[in-house]
């Protein structure tokens, strides 16, 4: 009775034979044809959603920002993303083979990890970096912990953290300014050092607000270029517009809920406004949300099912904590961005939060709690 999951009996001759012999046992006195019908416990009806459908839908939502990155930073973003995706899938396949587990590369989760990993590394890095990150993130961070569902760190961010620790120079300096006149091949194969720039938050942190305004402008120009993605940054983080659009679609499909993105972005906005300026209540919340991967993190990273809580209240606490940690790291820590570490710090706590904030039961038993 336990092997219910093996319902794909058609592929499994031995199981079929077992069913047939059981059928004949039961039909001993019958004249019914020895047909083969499936027997399992209820429910017999299942929704049309599946893990594959979810993963591939999220991947599809990440395609527009990827296409944009080609026009912003040049064609090599496509190369880095392709290398990252292929190496993640390959490492997943190899890990599952090596560990004797069923191969599940078709479910799209490795593809998604590959996409997200490429999205959080600078566009000017060597394509070798995502390969190393894939090995660390997928093999050590995911499969050695039990595979999908059992990893307690977001694999893509784990890959980024690994690269940040191992290749700090490349990871913090291989930024590219947006290309001019759609010359998307201009950086391809060339020396990146010659054109490198800095990310908005790094400029602000190291050189102050004046240098920032000089480099990126101010007012609606600034917000416009940040909103549509025409600015330096990681491959996939630049366009708040396209990321939010994809996030809204995921919300509409019911694949993510509003709890984590809203609480996370809300707490970043509010805390930046209070503590982020020269004095209290003078910070720029909009800029804080449009830079440093906040939107990418809120909609695509922190909402990762495996590494976020399942209960609604726990999700809100989780999102607010990430937001608070992000602002803390940005303002007081050593890194200009911060959401990567904030999410990684909260990831292992998600099951703890689920334990603290249990769903409300239908009704307690008579005479108080058990």
């Amino acid at each position, binding site marked *: 009775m336990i092997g219910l999951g093996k319902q794909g009996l058609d592929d499994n001759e031995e199981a079929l034979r077992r069913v047939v012999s059981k059928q004949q046992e039961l039909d001993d006195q019958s004249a019914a044809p020895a047909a083969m019908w499936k027997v399992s416990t209820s429910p017999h009806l*299942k929704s049309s959603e599946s893990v594959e459908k979810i993963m591939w839908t999220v991947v599809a939502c990440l395609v527009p920002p990827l296409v944009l990155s080609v026009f912003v930073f040049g064609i090599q973003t496509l190369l880095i993303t392709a290398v990252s995706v292929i190496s993640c899938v390959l490492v997943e396949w190899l890990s599952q083979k090596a560990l004797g587990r069923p191969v599940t590369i078709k479910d799209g989760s490795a593809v998604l990890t590959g996409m997200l990993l490429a999205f959080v590394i600078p566009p000017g890095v060597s394509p070798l970096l995502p390969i190393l990150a894939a090995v660390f993130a997928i093999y050590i961070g995911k499969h050695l912990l039990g595979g999908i569902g059992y990893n307690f760190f977001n694999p893509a961010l784990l890959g980024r953290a690994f690269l940040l620790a191992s290749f700090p120079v490349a990871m913090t300096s291989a930024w590219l300014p947006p290309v001019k006149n759609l010359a998307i091949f201009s950086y391809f194969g060339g020396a990146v050092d010659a054109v490198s720039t800095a990310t908005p938050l790094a400029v602000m942190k190291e050189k102050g607000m004046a240098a920032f305004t000089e480099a990126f402008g101010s007012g609606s120009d600034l917000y416009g270029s940040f909103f549509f993605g025409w600015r330096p940054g990681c491959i996939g983080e630049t366009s708040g517009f396209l990321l939010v659009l994809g996030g809204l679609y995921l919300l509409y499909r019911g694949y993510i809920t509003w709890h984590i993105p809203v609480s996370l972005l809300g707490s970043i906005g509010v805390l930046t406004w209070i503590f982020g300026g020269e004095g209290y209540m003078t910070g720029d919340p909009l800029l804080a949300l449009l830079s440093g991967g906040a939107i990418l993190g809120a909609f695509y990273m922190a909402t990762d099912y495996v590494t976020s809580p399942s209960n609604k209240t726990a999700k809100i606490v989780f999102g607010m904590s990430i937001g608070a940690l992000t602002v803390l790291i940005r303002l007081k820590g050593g890194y200009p961005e911060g959401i990567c570490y904030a999410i990684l710090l909260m990831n292992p706590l998600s099951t703890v939060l689920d334990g603290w904030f249990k769903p409300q039961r239908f009704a307690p038993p008579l005479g108080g709690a058990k």
Partner: protein
Amino acid sequence: MKSLLTFPKGGVHPPEFKTQTHGLGIEVMPVPDELELILGQHIGAPCQPTVTKREEIGEGALIGEVKKGLGVPLHSPVAGKIKDIGSSVHPVRVSAPSITLTVNHEAEAVHYAKEAWQHLDAAELLAMVHDGGIIGIGGAGFPTHVKLKPPANAPVDTLILNGAECEPYITADHRAMLEYSAEIIEGAKIILKILGINECHVGIENNKPDAILAMTKAAEQSSTPDASITIRTLQVKYPQGSEKQLIQAVTGRKVPAMALPSAVGVVVQNVCTAKAIYDAVVLRKPLYEKVITVAGKGIGRPANLLVKVGTKLKDIVEYLGGLQPGLSKIVLGGPMMGFAVSSLEVPVTKTTSAVLFLTKDEIDTKAHSQCIRCGWCLDACPMGLEPKEIALHVEAGRSELTEPFGVFDCFECGSCAYVCPAKRPLVQFIRLAKMKAKRPQ
């Protein structure tokens, strides 16, 4: 639009698949040559046969009785001869003691005349419900006379008739409410008299507007001051037909965990049970017939059938044009909570509400994968439980530790497994957990 009643927590919206049969009137199926009556038709003790082999019996004759324990008698659906007292294929218990009956097609059908019941008192009516062999025919099969005698310390003030029929495919209650509306309302009045109360609500889901209309009309026509019967329109949502969810939808009261509906002053009966009570009291006809829905792409002609209890599936299949190619699963009951059977020798019992012949594209055949902790099962669970945690514990061999996640509150509606994107057999995991975990108290 006025917002319709429903239960607030959890629930799912599976496709309804009711169009196949909801327009088809109840059709009387000709009696086959042989019937097989399972002696344990319900929760509680099975009947002891009161007849012997080769005995000739008439329609409606007593053939089984419960000597001790919880139970109701069993009656012969037809005139005929006892062929054998042996065992039959059972959908859940694999095999069960049963009486095989050879039908005498020559015998004249018994004609039941209406008799007055208004002069009878509650105890007499209750005895008739017991003697009529009536059990909750909505599915669980709890003996009705027990349910109609709530404990003295829990006074009941409301009767709810369950016409939600939230399971996909099934339209038997829908047709019964259309075609037997007056009988159901009369049955409700009998129940009200037995309980000594005067408030009755009939909960019907919004996808049966014609049934709502017919029942409203019938209720208006026979409304009296001592029996106020109101039809309550419910939102379509599974599992609305579950007792606790229906009570909350209609009255707003929450039945505590491990307690019976009488704890909040409510008794729930299925609409077809009310019809059976009408038959038993007004016509003095015991329960031996059942309206069932036969549907799915695997049967030649879907139908709503009035069949004798004990009719084997093979006779129904033969009557309805045979099995169709592609048939993959046969389910007794609805697709969410029904039981898959492996043989057409299985007979219809008093609790069978449907027989579904499902083809490969109508059922789920995907293998399950690891839990991705998406939490959809938490949102779907109407009881506020954590199916994913229970399943993970069972997989890890720690079934004993699942009580804190609420295994014993689970009534196995299957909403969690329905929404699970990893296609995990969560209900099965929970059943395993229930066997191992220690029940509180």
